[in-house]
């Protein structure tokens, strides 16, 4: 990775730290909640940016992967295993013996037994990756609108499953999800006192994600992905296994979405079907598009800006409409993204024309 990119990473670190210090200085640390959530959504967005901008594949199903991660972790860490253990269930006993279960008392003082968030998260990631793999094999053979429609279909299925399944809480979703203790003393949860820590957990995760993806983009694989994006036949004919490359990229970005889903679920202490909704997927796609498709930094910047505004309720009840409108405007006027120089040149040129 070039020096320029390490520099950008350093700038990102500086920005993350300054924002936290600024909220402290101005006594606005309540912003940290939305900034933390924004961080997790950014993780989905940079992953999608790899798929859309570099490998050139469109996915309207990423909210689905987010939800699979979040819901899996939610179910596993809230499903009471006490009765199963008493019945002598082999799997539960095995988990218990390996110390992978947590026992606590519930609100009424009854003993409850849950799976520890660490194994739950690992299972959630593996499950999401497997589903992305299986969906990806047939779906990634498609191109253009066919691919968009197939991934949209996948997103709808996941949404309807979340909405209709009893164990997933149907329309109410799952709540009272415990915190996720990453390391002793470092816990992903929504406790008031943990706000600063959680802000940093989210953004360190984003930072790790950015570094991994920037490394990838500037590697042999990244070059091959850009080649596939530009001229798939020619890439294949020069020796790139285009089908595998597209599939792996899709799976990686699904894993990014799943990790975001897992963390945000533990942070919020709950997850509902709206996280799996189509409008969420549309939102992710719109943000990557407005950031300039093949620009990790553009997507990140626009993602933070728009998600933060949305979470602060600035778009009111027009929230989804705003993202729909963004999509239309970008496609019409700035298919290379808003942060792209040529757009501004075009705008200033046409402004000049009107004057002249």
């Amino acid at each position, binding site marked *: *990775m070039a020096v320029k990119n390490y520099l950008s990473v350093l700038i990102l670190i500086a920005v993350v730290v300054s924002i936290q210090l600024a909220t402290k200085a101005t006594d606005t640390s309540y912003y940290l909640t939305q900034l933390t959530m924004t961080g997790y959504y950014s993780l989905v967005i940079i992953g999608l940016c790899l798929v859309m901008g570099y490998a050139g594949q469109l996915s309207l199903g990423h909210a689905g992967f987010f939800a699979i991660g979040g819901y899996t972790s939610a179910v596993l860490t809230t499903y009471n295993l006490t009765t199963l253990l008493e019945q002598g269930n082999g799997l539960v006993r095995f988990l218990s013996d390996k110390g992978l279960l947590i026992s606590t008392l519930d609100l009424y003082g009854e003993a409850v037994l849950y799976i520890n968030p660490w194994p739950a998260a690992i299972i959630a990631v593996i499950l999401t990756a497997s589903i992305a793999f299986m969906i990806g094999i047939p779906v990634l053979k498609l191109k253009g609108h066919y691919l968009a429609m197939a991934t949209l279909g996948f997103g709808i299925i996941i949404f309807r499953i979340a909405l209709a399944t009893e164990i997933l809480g149907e329309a109410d979703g799952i709540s009272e999800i415990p915190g996720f203790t990453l390391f002793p003393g470092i816990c992903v949860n929504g406790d008031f006192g943990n706000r600063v820590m959680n802000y940093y957990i989210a953004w360190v995760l984003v930072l790790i994600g950015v570094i*991994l*993806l920037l*490394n*990838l983009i500037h*590697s*042999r*694989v*990244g*070059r*091959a992905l*850009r*080649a596939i*994006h*530009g*001229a798939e*036949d*020619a*890439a*294949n*004919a*020069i*020796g*790139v*296994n*285009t089908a595998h490359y597209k599939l*792996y990229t899709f799976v*990686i970005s699904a894993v990014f979405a799943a990790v975001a889903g897992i963390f945000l679920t533990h942070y919020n202490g709950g997850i509902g079907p709206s996280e799996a909704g189509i409008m969420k997927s549309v939102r992710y796609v719109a943000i990557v598009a407005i950031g300039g498709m*093949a620009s990790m930094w553009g997507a990140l910047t626009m993602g933070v800006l728009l998600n933060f505004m949305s979470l602060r309720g600035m778009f009111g009840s027009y929230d989804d409409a705003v993202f729909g409108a963004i999509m239309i405007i970008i496609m019409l006027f700035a298919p290379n993204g808003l942060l792209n120089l040529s757009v501004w040149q075009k705008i200033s040129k046409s402004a000049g024309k009107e004057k002249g």
Partner: protein
Amino acid sequence: MALLEIHKLNRRFGGLHAVNNVSFNLDQGMIKAVIGPNGAGKTTLFNLISGNLQANSGTVFFDKRPIHGLKPFQIARCGISRTYQNIKLFPGMTALENVMVGRHVQSKAGFLSGMLNLPSCWSEEKEIRTKSLELLELLDITEFADTEAQSLAFGQQRAVEFARALASEPKILLLDEPAAGLNIYETAEIARLITKIQNRGITVLLVEHDMSLVMDISDEIVVLSFGEKIAEGLPAAIQKNKEVIQIYLGDDDA
């Protein structure tokens, strides 16, 4: 010894028999030209060899191994590389990056080592870059290394594509009209280059309309007409072949 054996290859597009029962061999180290009028099926033949199109029937053996039915990337890995009649560069990538993609089969860093930027990638990446720069040098386009390939002049784009094909260190290079659109100086340059490549031990199969180029550099010629092979032999013999002359000069007095 035949490096490439093409046997009774057929390809139809609906009612059109674009490649009709074509057979010939390509010997190690030679330059062989495929000529024929427009629409004779030359590009289709190339697409069948490189795997970009599937044959309806027939076989292609490379180094005694069947390669018909393999995917293009598998055929590339065997050591067959190509250029296109209507240049296919990777848009949005510089000339150097285009050539670096050509080194794909000669390198191996995967997703994991790429994401973690493991030290093993560093030396490989350096090698990819050095070898690619050498090829830009060979094609005399070093100064355009960091220019977006698609914004280059036509001749330079051909050169980039040429370099990209060479970057994979192929055993066989398929060149589909390498001199099309070039002026006589550039064409002479290409001729020198192809001979140079041959001297490096690379076998060349060449489609070309420029007859003086073909006659100058090829060791053997195959003539296609309406999908069928109508002649094969040494350049001198092909030049005298009645049927070939008829095709090229029109058959008014035949």
